[in-house]
């Protein structure tokens, strides 16, 4: 089943310095259960594309459907959970309170809220931190809480915009591993923006390589790696081959003489 389908998608921002072509000729389909990473240098439109899928930006050309609907309809039917670059937890709410936020807005019953909060906090290994405030936790824990918040309601799609970009490598490895387990357990479709090649290769079933000016897709790589991935798979030849191809794609799309 196709979850995201983009045909000749384009988005041009009108600025005072003339039009900026954030996205041009983007063609992509994401199937249910895929883990798709978007990688590219800054300005390649990877975040913009994710925001288009979320209905936070409106494309200026081509067509884009999410679950067969327009992105805005999908947003209003609460089709996805979105994880931002920063955790963005509300400091006046506890961890449990932050996870409860979308549930309150969507009108879940009290009992169901409690059940879901307990379940997703267990999923991201934050059980026991319900009553803590975000500013009492480390950056990695805050980001895990924000993932729990995105998982709390029944969205089949998880959109993640460089969620681990601000974290150190050790925490990042750990969270990547947890994310794969979580993906296996929940069978969600994940779109993941990153600028880290190892992260993209380790996580994804498909890697979308993008390049800037205008933002466009230069390569789509189907990962030959198995779904079950221990951390040391990153030393296998297969992994290195994929990483190499991603690097080549980035180099071809990105003019370094600029």
């Amino acid at each position, binding site marked *: 089943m196709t979850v995201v389908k983009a045909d000749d998608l384009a988005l041009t921002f009108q600025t005072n310095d003339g039009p900026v072509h954030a996205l041009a000729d983007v063609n992509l389909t994401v199937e249910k259960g895929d883990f798709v990473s978007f990688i590219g240098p800054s300005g390649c439109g990877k975040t913009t594309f994710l925001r288009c899928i*979320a*209905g*936070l930006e409106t494309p200026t050309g081509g067509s884009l459907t999410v679950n067969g609907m327009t992105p805005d309809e999908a*947003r*209003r039917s*609460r089709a*996805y*959970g*979105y994880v*931002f*670059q*920063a955790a*963005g937890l*509300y*400091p*006046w709410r506890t961890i449990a309170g932050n996870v409860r*936020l*979308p549930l*309150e*807005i*969507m009108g879940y019953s009290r009992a169901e809220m409690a059940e879901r909060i307990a379940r997703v906090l267990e999923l991201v290994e934050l059980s026991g931190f319900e009553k803590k*405030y975000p*500013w009492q936790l480390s950056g990695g824990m805050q980001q895990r809480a924000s993932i729990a918040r995105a998982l709390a309601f029944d969205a089949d799609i998880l959109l993640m915009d460089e969620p681990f970009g601000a974290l150190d490598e050790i925490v990042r490895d750990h969270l990547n591993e947890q994310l794969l387990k979580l993906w296996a357990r929940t069978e969600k479709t994940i779109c993941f923006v990153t600028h880290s090649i190892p992260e993209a290769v380790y996580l994804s079933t498909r890697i979308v390589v993008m390049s800037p000016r205008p933002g466009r897709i230069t390569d789509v790589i189907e990962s030959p790696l198995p779904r079950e991935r221990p951390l040391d798979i990153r030393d296998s030849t297969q992994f290195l081959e994929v990483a190499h191809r991603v690097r080549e794609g980035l180099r071809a799309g990105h003019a370094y003489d600029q």
Partner: protein
Amino acid sequence: MGLVIAALVLWGAGWMMNMAIAASPRRTTLAARVAVPVIFGITVLVMWELLVRGLGVSPIILPAPSAIAGAFAEQTHTLWLDFRQTVLKGALSGFFIGCAAAFAAALAIDRVPFLQRGLLPIGNFVAALPIIGVAPIMVGWFGFDWESKAAVVVVMVFFPMLINTVQGLADTTAMQRDLMKTYSAGYWQSLFKLRLPAALPFIFNGLKISTTLALIGAIVAEYFGSPTHGMGFRISTEVGRLGLDMVWAEITAAAIAGTCFYGVVALIERGLTFWHPSQRSG
């Protein structure tokens, strides 16, 4: 002369004591933190008493603290009546009406951007009106009793409260607003779950500024006509009768009332915005 020397000696002693406490290793204990201002206050009061007596200062220029305390104790009933008239009726009702009206106006301005260009300049204009000019007009409109004082207070607190609330409601990040959008939250849900909590530190700034403005407004407005009680009325008539000890007793009562008023608002703020970096400890 002896009393003046005693005052200077006392000043030296008080100074030395506070220096000693400030330098001692136990300076962070609660007892030390309470003792320092208490010693300072007592030193100032006793010095005041000794100097006024020693130098024979006229009670019209500066009454001794004992005379002020005497007037305070003797006239408690009058002070209570004045307090009820000025603080409880004039200042507090004006404060609540003014702050509530400003809050509602801020919500309206926030909802309808058109009003932002229309209402804010008017609010600014009203805030620039001198209280000396507004008070007689309000007395003319609302009569001599507390209603006109409350009206002056409303005019005084409206603008600072409005500006702070408008600014507070705008104090959310793009990411926080996007998050609400991904949940497809409505206007009221965003307001109650995101924007009002985020605005609380600003709202409390407005409220705290308004507490002092309310008291000033209610007292000063009584200079322009009032029934025969009220703190401003008492101050202006006692000055005329050279009853300066009573003037000082009223000032003391006003200072205590103002401090308590501010303190209560600050305590509520602490309870509600404990999460804000300015309030949280460690």
